[in-house]
């Protein structure tokens, strides 16, 4: 059985923890572990990290810095798989970024790398002027 939950919110950095904590609580539905006990739970940790990266990117790489866009996050919940996709109105981009050249002490460019490493599957779609990055992981 597939269940869907949708979160719509302003693309502002202050909401990052709201988004990642909401995602953790959804991940906890699948693991059956309560959140306070979830430290060290790889599944929940992976989603907390990946959604933090993806939401931060949607906020920081907005074309218009004037006023925050509305960002939509869709959770598709299956018994043994969680899929989170995030829609923004930013310019298109590629998710297959080269790994950062660590010896140069880069301050940026780790986000998509982290997402790719902690998720099972990451896909990118461009639809009607929106970016949709979709991340999923099996329990």
């Amino acid at each position, binding site marked *: 059985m597939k269940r869907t939950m949708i979160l719509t919110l302003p693309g502002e950095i202050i909401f*990052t923890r709201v988004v990642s904590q909401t995602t953790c609580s959804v991940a906890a539905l699948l693991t059956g572990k309560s959140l306070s006990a979830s430290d060290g739970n790889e599944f929940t940790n992976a989603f907390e990290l990946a959604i933090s990266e993806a939401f931060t990117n949607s*906020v920081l790489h907005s074309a218009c810095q004037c006023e925050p866009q509305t960002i939509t996050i869709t959770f598709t919940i299956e018994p043994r798989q969680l899929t989170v996709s995030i829609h923004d109105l930013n310019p298109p981009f590629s998710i297959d970024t080269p790994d950062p050249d*660590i010896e140069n002490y880069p*301050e*940026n460019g*780790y986000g998509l790398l982290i997402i790719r490493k*902690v998720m099972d599957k990451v896909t990118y779609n461009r639809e009607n002027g929106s970016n949709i990055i979709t991340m999923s992981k099996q329990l």
Partner: protein
Amino acid sequence: MIITEISKGDVAIIAFNGTLDASSAPELRKNRALNDPLQTVVVDLQKLDFIDSSGLGAIVGVARLKDDRRFGILLSCMNDRVRKVFEITNAQKLFHIFDDTKAAVEYGATRQSTCK
């Protein structure tokens, strides 16, 4: 996130407490010891619950400022979740990482006296 200066001196000790992400990362730029190119700093991460790429980038960024990049920032007591972020990005290669703060401080002190 809360940044606490635990001790000053040849080797400064600073503790991070909470969450280091895009909303808290800019705070690192405000800390004098972290941004002084000559100051060796041990950063105690024991109470850092969460770090993402923005937080990692901020730590790498202050390390880059240091005259001696590999020894300007010494990291101690990271939990497994934080360590994982350093591992999967390869950023662990840029830092000396210690299991306890005392060892990190001693190491920093030796290094400093060698330099002088």
